[in-house]
């Protein structure tokens, strides 16, 4: 086992780690979005809260939770390591560099988009996850969500982060398949399209919550907050 | 005393090499490790020799002036490599390849060497395929062949228009493998600047580290030169900028005879010169002549665009003059014909020194897709350089210096007249006579390196197993290094007014004008004086900036140009001496009534091997008579 872990030490191995953890997080995003969509049921938040309860009490999900945090941690640490390593590979920068001529903005700024998403994630966890899991607040999760989005800055931060998440995924999704070796004449174009669609789905899906709740469209917020 | 013993094995032509291989002396494996061989040059011949010798167990050092062996100019060969595989079932055989090569060389090559080359050709293809060289294939998965200038069978193997690249990368990979194994130590960015002689044998070299300027001494039981051709003596050629004569010139001055120095191949299909800033000429593969038709306007000074000139006003002069071979006549014939029409004032383009190579008819016949598949990368390259699109308007081409058939005289073992000093590939004179056929240079380079030298060098080294290695503190090394240092210091101290390029360009102009496509006694005599004058000019007026102990490309060039000037003189002497026309050597005094080259077998059926007699002294001409036991020289006819 130790011996085979060696494969992850090389530059190729490390980016395999990025790809695998990245794709795992994509699966989580999909699941998370499914859960969040319960908020649009206009049932006073019942379905959403039940879904939340199910997650908390299901033993398998609890186990996956550790895996999830491990995945995030690995994804972040590996990115950090690779970034530092890559900085070292070019100690003197170019005076003039026209990278826009050879690569996409998304692909070159994974570090920036990723870092901001990480900051958001910490705030996000503090707002919803830590308070409910460890501090035992007595309001329902649905209520907290609806309430949080009434704040200007939180709604704005959320929206902004989701746009960046879209940008991150737009490169990340197809990049992961490239890293796993799935790029060939038949598959790369479809994968790129699927990647962009997935990124758009996540961006629009998650990005809809701050907008819907902030402006109380279709009464999504008032339905839960009961005004 | 004539040292020209060609050491051709006895017996019938077909069995000479086989017999040689089974009777040649061997060095036992345990001794090989203790024997050191220096290989100078890392092109097809050098890289393959270094790899093959290391595989046998010899301790090898290999030198190249570029930053990697993979840069050697073999990489630029486009068209292909010949081999008598007869995969096309069109009547090819070892004998036919041998015959075509001797005939193509205008009967100025050694039969035994050429036959060996043809014999080995098939093994080269096997070897390269085993190395993973991606030759062109047919849909059935087997290798594809095409026909190539000057022959009537399809025996040329190719990898798109980059055959040289793929073969060199194959040899480079074999070399890299040996470097990894520790059998070869590679010295990149190193230039050989002197041969070290001990007791009449080549025992090492002085090399200059081109990054630091340091002079290094290297001992070897034998020294193998594979340093390519000297076409850059003409300044403009299709050779790489760094291609030079320095290594073989030093060898010549240490006693290695120089064979047929004036035999130069002028390639008919190059992109014409566009201005006086021009630094080199670019070849367009000869394969283009398979589908392109060469023509000029019938009228003198016709400046209309090619598309505007109707068919009846075009002169497809190769098809007209040589109906049997048409556009596929050998290189020397095609080049001379182009020069003739331009001399008549019918040349095209701004300079009037170009002819059209037109694909209109083949695009019409085969469709653009087929032409693109065959020549896409060449068309692209042409467009990049000239800005014209050859799918729309004909290419403009003109002959340019491309290959030098002359080089160090070697015997059957590829050893020069200096014991222990070998010459492989383009830098020897051996296989192409007075004119090389297309797709034969790659064949010769790899044959020499992979399959000849590993056998023949053993014959010499078998006597050296007790020789031990000589410490480089030996006075001969001291002496050699001192002479190199003195020469460099002298060059640096001149501090004249002309740049190295100025002087090189002057040399090129003299050589191209008087010792190029057409040569005559009067012009050559004049050129001889001019080159001798130029030599004085060089040594009194060259300007080299920078210092000695640093990366100094001007100094590198200066050393090379100084040698080119001296070589230029020898080429002129050789051209003067050879009063016949043969192959690429066209003496205007010796032509048939309709302007074709006329050989003089009675007086010139020999290899001219020039011997250095000391600075300021006339070199001495030695002759190796050529005997033709199998092929009977006839006047070449491609009509």
């Amino acid at each position, binding site marked *: 086992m130790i011996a085979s872990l060696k494969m992850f030490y090389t530059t190729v191995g490390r980016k395999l780690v990025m790809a695998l953890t990245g794709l795992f997080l994509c699966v989580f995003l999909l699941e998370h979005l499914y859960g969040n969509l319960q908020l649009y049921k206009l049932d006073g938040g019942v379905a959403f809260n039940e879904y939340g309860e199910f997650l908390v009490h299901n033993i398998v999900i609890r186990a996956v939770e550790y895996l999830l945090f491990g995945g995030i941690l690995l994804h972040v640490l590996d990115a950090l390591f690779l970034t530092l390593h890559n900085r070292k590979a*070019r100690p003197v920068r*170019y005076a*003039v560099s026209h990278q826009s*001529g050879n690569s996409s903005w998304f692909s070159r700024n994974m570090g920036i988009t990723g870092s901001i998403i990480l900051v958001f994630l910490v705030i996000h966890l503090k707002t919803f996850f830590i308070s409910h899991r460890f501090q035992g607040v007595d309001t329902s999760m649905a209520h907290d969500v609806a309430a949080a989005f009434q704040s200007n800055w939180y709604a704005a931060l959320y929206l902004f982060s989701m746009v960046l998440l879209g940008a991150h995924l737009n490169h990340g999704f197809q990049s992961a398949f490239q*890293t796993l070796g799935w790029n060939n004449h038949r598959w790369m174009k479809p994968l790129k399209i699927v990647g962009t669609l997935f990124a758009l789905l996540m961006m629009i899906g998650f990005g809809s919550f701050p907008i819907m709740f902030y402006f109380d469209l279709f009464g999504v917020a008032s339905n839960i907050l009961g005004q | 005393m004539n040292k020209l013993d060609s050491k051709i094995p006895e017996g019938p032509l077909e069995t000479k090499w086989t017999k040689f291989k089974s009777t040649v002396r061997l060095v036992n494996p345990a001794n090989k490790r203790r024997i050191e061989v220096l290989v100078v040059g890392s092109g097809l011949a050098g890289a393959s020799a270094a790899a093959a010798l290391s595989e046998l167990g010899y301790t090898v050092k290999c030198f190249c002036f570029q930053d990697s062996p993979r840069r050697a100019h073999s990489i630029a060969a486009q068209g292909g490599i010949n081999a008598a595989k007869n995969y096309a079932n069109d009547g090819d055989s070892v004998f036919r390849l041998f015959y075509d090569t001797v005939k193509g060389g205008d009967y100025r090559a050694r039969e035994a060497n050429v036959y060996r080359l043809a014999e080995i050709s098939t093994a080269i293809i096997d070897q390269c*395929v085993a190395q993973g060289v991606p030759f062109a294939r047919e849909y059935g998965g*087997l290798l594809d062949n095409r026909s190539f200038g000057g022959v009537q069978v399809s025996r040329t193997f190719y990898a798109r228009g980059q055959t040289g690249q793929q073969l060199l990368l194959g040899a480079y990979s074999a070399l*890299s493998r040996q470097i990894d194994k520790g059998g070869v130590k590679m010295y990149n960015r190193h230039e050989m600047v002197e041969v070290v002689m001990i007791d009449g044998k080549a025992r090492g070299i002085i090399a200059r580290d081109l990054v630091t300027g340091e002079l290094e001494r290297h001992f070897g039981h034998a020294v193998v030169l594979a340093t390519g051709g000297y076409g850059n003596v003409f300044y403009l050629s299709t050779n790489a900028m760094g291609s030079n004569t320095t290594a073989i010139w030093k060898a010549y001055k240490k006693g290695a005879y120089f064979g047929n120095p004036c035999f130069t191949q002028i390639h008919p299909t190059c992109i014409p010169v566009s201005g006086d800033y021009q630094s080199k000429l670019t070849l367009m593969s000869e394969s283009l002549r398979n589908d392109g038709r060469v023509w000029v306007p019938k009228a003198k000074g016709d400046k209309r665009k090619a598309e505007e000139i109707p068919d009846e006003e075009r002169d497809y002069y190769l098809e007209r003059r040589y109906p049997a071979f048409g556009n596929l006549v050998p290189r020397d014939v095609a080049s001379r014909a182009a020069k003739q029409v331009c001399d008549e004032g019918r040349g095209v383009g701004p300079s009037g020194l170009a002819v059209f190579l037109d694909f209109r008819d083949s695009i019409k016949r085969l469709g653009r897709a087929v032409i693109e598949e065959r020549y896409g990368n060449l068309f692209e390259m042409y467009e990049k350089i000239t800005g014209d699109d050859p799918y729309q308007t004909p290419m403009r081409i003109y002959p340019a210096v491309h290959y030098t058939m002359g080089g160090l005289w070697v015997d059957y073992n590829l050893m020069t007249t200096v014991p222990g000093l070998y010459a492989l590939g383009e830098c020897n004179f051996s296989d192409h006579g007075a004119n090389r056929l297309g797709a034969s240079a790659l064949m010769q380079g790899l044959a020499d390196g992979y399959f000849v030298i590993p056998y023949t060098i053993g014959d010499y080294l078998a006597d050296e197993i007790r020789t031990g290695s000589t410490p480089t503190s030996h006075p001969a090394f001291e002496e050699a290094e001192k002479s190199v240092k003195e020469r460099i210091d002298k060059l640096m101290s001149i501090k004249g007014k002309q740049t190295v390029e100025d002087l090189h360009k002057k040399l090129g102009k003299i050589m191209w004008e008087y010792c190029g496509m057409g040569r005559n006694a009067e012009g050559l005599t004049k050129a001889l004086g001019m080159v001798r004058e130029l030599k004085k000019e060089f040594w009194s007026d060259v300007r080299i900036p920078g210092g000695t102990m640093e990366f100094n490309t001007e100094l590198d060039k200066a050393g090379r140009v100084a040698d080119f000037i001296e070589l230029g003189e020898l080429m002129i002497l050789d051209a003067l001496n050879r009063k016949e026309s043969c192959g690429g050597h066209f003496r205007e005094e010796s032509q048939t009534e309709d302007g074709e080259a006329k050989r003089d077998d009675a007086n010139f059926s020999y290899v001219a091997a020039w011997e250095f007699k000391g600075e300021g002294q006339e070199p001495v001409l030695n002759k190796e008579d050529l005997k033709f036991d199998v092929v009977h020289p006839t006047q070449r006819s491609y009509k």
Partner: protein
Amino acid sequence: MAETINLKLKIWRQKNSKESGRFEIYDMPGVNTHMSFLEMLDVLNDRLVREGKEPVAFDHDCREGICGMCSMYINGRAHGMLKGTTTCQLHMRHFHDGETVTIEPWRASAFPVIRDLVVDRSGFEKIMQAGGYISVNTGNAPDANSLPIAKVKADEAFDAAACIGCGACVASCKNASAMLFLSAKVSQFALLPQGEPERRERVLRMVAAHDEAGFGSCTNTGACEAECPKGISISHIARLNREYLAASLVKE
């Protein structure tokens, strides 16, 4: 199109690997647009030598776009802005009158500057020596046609083998990664039956050599593919990743 243009050149000058370098600015009036980029530098150097100054050192050899020796970062792009072109094949007709042209050496810790625009690319040699070959000794190869290879495979292997080892992929990669160079060789041999016996060992050793030489890691930006003068596809990097994964999982 103007026959001549006037340019300002901003060129990196550095005496050797130890001293630090700086930019110098040179006026280049009357540049003939039919010249190649290197010929333009020849003209500059000719002038510098006449003025008693040291010429700009740059690597070049074949000037036909195949040896891979030339290496310049021109106006922020490896080998300049033209697609599929080496510096030696870049002609001045693609520049505008009055333009300032910035010329820098390849920048990577694995490619230290030797002088001016000349860099040391021996990292590539190390990668090749680690497995960029098929271990077949001279003389014992079977007949070339005893091993049929599907044309599509052979063609794709050729596409990879067309790499000229110039280093533009490293130069243009934001991480100075040599993945495209490395993958071209791995992919060529992975596509051919001749490469099969050493397949696993090769990819593992070559990746290790790549890392040891100090190249960065690939983040799939595709810049290498866009700048490669021979148009080598990053699908070869995907194949390399596949080979690596397979080799790692099966080994030990």
